């Protein structure tokens, strides 16, 4: 540390102010340098550590893996890392702020690097960092990022998936169905006469209806492969793989019933005087540029034209329709 005294700082001050443990041992394993951080956390003063074997400086045992690593670094001059994951607490170090009677050892990350002393002696520099803070920080960041991830893909009003999630999921579901040649069903759902409901009952009432319909539709899903998303204002979309066309038609009917059974009054809706939905469904094994979503939308449009509160199913390719007729 003497050669750099021309610098505007005393290196010893910096060495002792570092927020990490630094200690240097020589080839015999004797401590040459011992900074304040390590003195504070080990409760062993510099004067009690220097010139003593590192292994015996502490009142508690040092982990065997640490001693092996130290021995290897001294023998082969190769740097070693001891991770928190595999070692946790190699050295008996504590956080003095812990006021508990039973103090627990600090989680540590350690690196051991070979260095030469100015007397050309082979030594090891041992650096110890307290990893409990970084573990805490990482846990916090992860829980934040999980919340944000959920928020980014969830519709705020209904708590079902949002349009952004649907767009990404739809693309993947189509690609999967194409590759594995299995059928995929898309259901487009629209609440009938919703605009007049809003006009008559107000927007808060309207929001409530959207929430109730979303919950009723969602409760019909039981497979992990199926998703429901809010597509737009009062429109919903469901993506369900592996269903034969007849089953998909039956399921659309189930959706319509589930909403009908809510029996939400809507006096501006003729002839039922309650909230109903129209459903357009398209089922098929997608090939090339087939567009299930457009087809399901066409089916929904037909359901609206034919009087609402009904389900219309269209096959993905026209040939299938001919075959069925």
């Amino acid at each position: 540390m003497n050669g750099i005294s021309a610098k505007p700082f005393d290196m010893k001050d910096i060495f002792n102010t570092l927020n990490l443990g630094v200690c240097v041992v020589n080839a015999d394993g004797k401590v040459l340098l011992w900074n304040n951080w390590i003195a504070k956390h080990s409760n062993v003063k510099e004067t009690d550590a220097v010139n003593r074997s590192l292994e015996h400086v502490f009142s508690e045992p040092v982990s065997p893996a640490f001693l092996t690593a130290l021995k290897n670094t001294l023998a082969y001059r190769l740097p070693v890392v001891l991770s928190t994951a595999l070692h946790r607490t190699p050295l008996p170090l504590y956080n003095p702020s812990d006021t508990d009677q039973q103090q627990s050892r600090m989680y540590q990350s350690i690196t051991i690097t070979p260095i030469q002393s100015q007397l050309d002696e082979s030594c090891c520099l041992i650096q110890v960092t307290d990893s409990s803070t970084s573990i805490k920080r990482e846990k916090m960041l992860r829980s934040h990022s999980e919340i944000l991830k959920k928020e980014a893909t969830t519709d705020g009003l209904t708590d079902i998936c949002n349009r952004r999630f649907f767009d990404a999921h739809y693309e993947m579901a189509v690609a999967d169905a194409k590759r594995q040649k299995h059928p995929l069903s898309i259901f487009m759902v629209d609440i009938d006469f919703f605009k007049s409901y809003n006009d008559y009952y107000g927007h808060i009432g309207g929001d409530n209806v959207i929430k109730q319909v979303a919950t009723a539709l969602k409760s019909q899903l039981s497979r992990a492969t199926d998703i429901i998303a809010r597509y737009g204002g009062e429109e919903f979309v469901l993506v369900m793989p592996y269903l034969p066309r007849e089953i998909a038609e039956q399921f659309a009917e189930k959706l319509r019933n589930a909403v009908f059974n809510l029996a939400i009054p809507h006096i501006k809706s003729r002839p039922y005087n309650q909230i109903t939905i129209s459903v357009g469904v398209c089922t098929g094994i997608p090939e090339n540029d087939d567009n299930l979503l457009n087809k399901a939308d066409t089916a929904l449009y037909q359901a609206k034209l034919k009087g609402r509160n009904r389900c219309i199913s269209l096959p993905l390719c026209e040939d299938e329709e001919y075959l069925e007729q």
Partner: protein
Amino acid sequence: MNKLSELHLDALTEVFSIGAGRAALSLSEIVGDEVRISVPSVQVISSEEINSTTLSLNDGRFGAVSQHFSGPFNAEAVLLFTEDQALKIVSDMMGSQMSIDELAEFEHEAMCELGNIILNACLSAMADILNFTLNSSLPDYTVASADEILHRLKESSNQPYVMVLHIDLAIEKRHTAGNLVFLLSSASLTNLVIHVDQFLGKIS
């Protein structure tokens, strides 16, 4: 590219097998269970020949631990495992103390340590048997795709040779295969051959 004979490769396989044995011993001490590591083959090829087959890289992402060595010869050593396998190794090494989810925060450091143990063991075996010492940087851990890794390996034009060690690692019942790749300059390869020749001269 005929600097290395079968005999050279056999000698290197032996050196690295000793290294692998040492690494297995260190790992067993940490894991508290038997760890077996073997090096079934060593290959030296020019970096142009390197492709996903020579490294048995498939799709997916890989964990790469790298260290730079300098001394009688300079090399960059990169230890490659698929990311899935890397996570499983770490989880096995840590026992059932935590779930795979929690592992993410420890993975980076633990993989650095695993790579460091294997790389240092191979280097120390070389030092003991071939009689030279090398300096080394601390390990770095990165996660990359096969393409990114191949691109990086081919990029280093001043290191036209690649020594590839196929590594088998078994912890408890899990069996994992990885690769240890040394990127060597032409001078470094020559120096390595000289040291292997000296070693072969001593034993014959």
